């Protein structure tokens, strides 16, 4: 019975392998979950700290690799993280989180209809904010919020995972044509192409009244957004954003948003709807229902 013997030998081999794996696993010490697991490929200085000025990682096609966990950060501003790599325990926010026009002399160039709306939202401490209602954060806003973003970059697509609400954004890096009449989406529809080492991302198809800061500034369905994204070095990502939204703004405006790398950390659930209590405790449910009518 050569067939049976062969089957038995194979079974014995499989059981042996399974037992070996079981024993080796059982012998391992309990591993940490999420926190402190060393990120691979991080350039470090002699003292073990992250070499933020280290070389830019590259994709197989030679283009810069934006992969990594990023958080708001500005080397020139200690309150925005300074120039140290984040470790997940020191995530902060940028001044653009509150006001996207923080560096503009006259602020964002709102259309007249938007001025009283932003004024009211700022005065009432953002009680109408979709973020508080656990809705997705638009990507411009996410760059400045104190939640981590994980970039997964391949030659065909850049996926940005947002720790808040398990969110995601797709940036198609195949330079595909943008649709003529896009269906609005929470993150719009993004197509990108390379210009040297800078990834030029064009986005349309955004939703009306998508908040971009705590003050309640918004973009609309008419928005055309261009991001010029470049990895300056290992530890820094710079995103020059130009917003052309004639429905909300009297002229195009530009802001440069900076990110710093986070190492030895992973995304951890932050699903807002699980037990959101602010809206209920502040008595905003009735107001929301009234607004929806």
């Amino acid at each position: 019975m050569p067939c049976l013997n062969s089957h038995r030998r194979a079974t014995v081999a499989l059981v042996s392998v399974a037992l070996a794996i079981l024993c080796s696993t059982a012998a391992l010490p309990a591993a940490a979950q999420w926190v402190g697991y060393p990120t691979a490929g991080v350039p470090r200085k002699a003292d073990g700290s992250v070499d933020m000025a280290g070389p830019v990682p590259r994709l197989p096609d030679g283009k810069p690799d934006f992969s990594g966990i990023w958080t708001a950060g500005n080397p020139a501003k200690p309150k925005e993280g300074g120039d140290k790599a984040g470790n997940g325990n020191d995530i902060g926010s940028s001044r653009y989180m509150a006001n996207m026009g923080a560096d503009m002399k006259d602020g964002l160039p709102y259309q007249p209809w938007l001025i009283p709306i932003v004024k009211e939202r700022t005065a009432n401490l953002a009680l109408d904010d979709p973020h508080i209602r656990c809705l997705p954060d638009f990507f411009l806003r996410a760059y400045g919020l104190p939640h981590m973003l994980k970039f997964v970059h391949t030659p065909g697509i850049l996926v940005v995972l947002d720790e808040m609400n398990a969110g995601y954004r797709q940036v198609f890096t195949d330079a595909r044509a943008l649709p003529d009449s896009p269906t609005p989406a929470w993150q719009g529809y993004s197509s990108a192409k390379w210009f040297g080492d800078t990834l030029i991302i064009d986005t349309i198809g955004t939703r009306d009244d998508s908040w971009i800061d705590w003050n309640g500034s918004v973009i609309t369905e008419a928005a055309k957004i261009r991001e010029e994204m470049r990895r300056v070095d290992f530890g820094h990502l710079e995103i020059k954003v130009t917003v052309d939204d004639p429905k909300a703004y009297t002229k195009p405006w530009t802001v440069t948003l900076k990110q710093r790398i986070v190492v030895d950390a992973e995304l951890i659930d932050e699903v807002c709807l699980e037990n959101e209590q602010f809206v209920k405790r502040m008595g905003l449910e009735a107001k929301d229902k009234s607004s929806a009518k």
Partner: protein
Amino acid sequence: MKPRMSLLLCLSVGVATALPAVAHHSFPAQYDINKPVTLTGKVTKVEWTNPHIFIYVDVADDKGSVVNWAFEMGGPNSLIRQGWKRDSLKPEDTVTIEGSLARDGTHLVNARTVAVDGKKLFAGSQGGEAPAK
């Protein structure tokens, strides 16, 4: 090393230093930084949930009446990164909590620190800082 001791060792140094102040809603809309409070009592319930953890504590007043207070803390991801575990606080634990009272006069506090076994732990909440303008 027991988890509780490990947590305390991790967090007992530099409680009030520049730890992240993370919240998903406006602190001053709900809490009054000018109304600080320190309360001691026994934990009755722990809601280890997003976006913020809530713990409920029975606190006795001067006359012996017991009131169940709610304390809002940071989110699980923020506290996990600082060494907290979901069972770091349990019902029947005696805690002393520093924080800010809710503006609406209810028995609700935004917790800044939690002291258990005589050690102060960062509670991961805002500590009164409004979003930068």
